């Protein structure tokens, strides 16, 4: 049972202000079919809120790059997302193309089928291939899709990715066709207990509230990926701590303010019909 954010935030080491929490978050929009202007607005909001990074689809890297200019916000994108079922050669080539366009960080998906089959050497090699294709300094996060793996497979896949050169191990794609459950604190504790201290852990997939975020940070997460970054920050907002974009003035109350994610800025979907994530996995 996770205590309310007010209580959790008192714990040593946990972020207690929106700005401190924003430094953990990759504000993410991997929706199907967003226009360039929708992505520009999304990235600008992330810059205003000083998130750690924006995570957007590969064809939006140049657009994001121009908006973050002059800020500390990093541009992250995805490789072999969300299915991970590309050859190692193609993954490395994809990584090189996004780095060439100016991505600071790359979130790649492993070949999940091979992890399920216990082929961890192949996982290490595909990660090493991507690592080798990236310029020094580009951060490599490796998504192992824990919702499709058991604990032992998760650990073995994470260790293989670490040996292949991952900077951070990431829990999930959050893609509904694959991710049958959200990331939970125990996923983070498991990874944290097995990985080297210098290897980071990124929690992603179903992290939607301040409580979710502080819970995974307490469990050891270094980074959070979420499309609900603004809603996550809301729980720590006070009249002095800075405003949600679009809000009219200082919030009237201290303490957690939980607002609907779509009230002011988190992209629920770029497509009016709410498409983008569907029910049934294919191929």
């Amino acid at each position, binding site marked *: 049972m996770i205590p309310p954010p007010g209580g959790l935030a008192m714990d040593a080491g946990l972020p207690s202000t929106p700005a401190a929490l924003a430094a953990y978050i990759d504000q993410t929009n991997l929706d*199907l079919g967003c226009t360039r202007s929708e992505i520009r607005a999304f990235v600008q909001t992330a810059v205003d809120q000083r998130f750690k990074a924006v995570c957007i689809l590969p064809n939006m890297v140049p657009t994001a790059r121009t908006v973050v200019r002059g800020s500390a916000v990093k541009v992250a994108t995805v490789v072999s997302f969300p299915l991970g079922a590309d050859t190692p050669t193609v993954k490395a080539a994809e990584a090189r193309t996004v780095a060439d366009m100016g991505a600071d960080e790359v979130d790649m998906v492993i070949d999940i089928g091979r992890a399920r089959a216990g082929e961890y050497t192949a996982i290490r090699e595909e990660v090493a291939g991507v690592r080798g294709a990236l310029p020094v300094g580009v951060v490599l996060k490796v998504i192992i899709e824990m919702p499709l793996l058991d604990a032992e497979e998760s650990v073995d896949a994470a260790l293989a990715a670490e040996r292949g050169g991952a900077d951070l191990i990431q829990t999930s794609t959050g893609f509904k066709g694959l991710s049958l459950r959200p990331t939970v604190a125990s996923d983070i504790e498991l990874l944290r207990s097995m990985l080297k201290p210098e290897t980071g852990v990124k929690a992603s997939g179903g992290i939607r509230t301040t409580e979710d975020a502080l819970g995974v940070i307490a469990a050891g997460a270094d980074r959070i990926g979420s499309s609900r970054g603004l809603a996550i920050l809301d729980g720590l907002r006070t009249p002095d701590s800075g405003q949600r974009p679009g809000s009219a003035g200082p919030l009237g109350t201290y303490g957690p303010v939980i607002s609907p994610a779509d009230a002011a800025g988190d992209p629920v979907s770029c497509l009016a019909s709410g498409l983008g994530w569907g029910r049934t996995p294919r191929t």
Partner: protein
Amino acid sequence: MRDLRSAELALSLEASIATPAPTREELEEFFKSLAGWDYAAVMVEPAYVTSSRPILSAMGQRLATVIGHPLGALTTQAKVIQAEQALEDGADELNVALDVSAFRSGDYQRVIDDLTAVRRLADAGAIKVIYYAAALTDQESLRAAELIGEAGITFLITSSGFQGPTEGHQVEVIRARYGSALRLMAWGEIDSRPEAMAMLAAGADRVATSSTRALLGTAP
């Protein structure tokens, strides 16, 4: 439309596995489950083309794979690299996702150039384009079909399979405008025989499904 015999229906199906992120073993079991009929094609993800090719060749089945799937958001350069590798690995058909962000941004030339770069790699007949009907209005779907045609491609796919159910109306809109000048595959939650028959009745040439057994019954 009269009900087809299973053998005839199978010839209109593009079959894929239902299990997400299958192991090679699960994929081979799936191929075994297909025995007994000839299909339009069997669809596998790019990483599995090499290992699937000899098995599907022995079964006499065509092999289709996906490019830029399911979000259509790769750079053109990455799509080309992915397509080149898939063809080299033995794919007969490429299901290529349209850059729907460029399309919705009104950058039509970019949509055409992106598809043309992939189409140049193979016979036009080997390329099908996913145009995300469920994300577009009828008017936009027709515009997308026009751009796909400008790229020299005449085989459309309604969806990546991840955007909810495909509807007969989506097929009819394209069919009404283009008649037999375009071919069309319906993809998206077609899991029963009546659903597949409805798509064919609406004018689809092909139906993608990961429920082949439910559609066809037990093999002869």
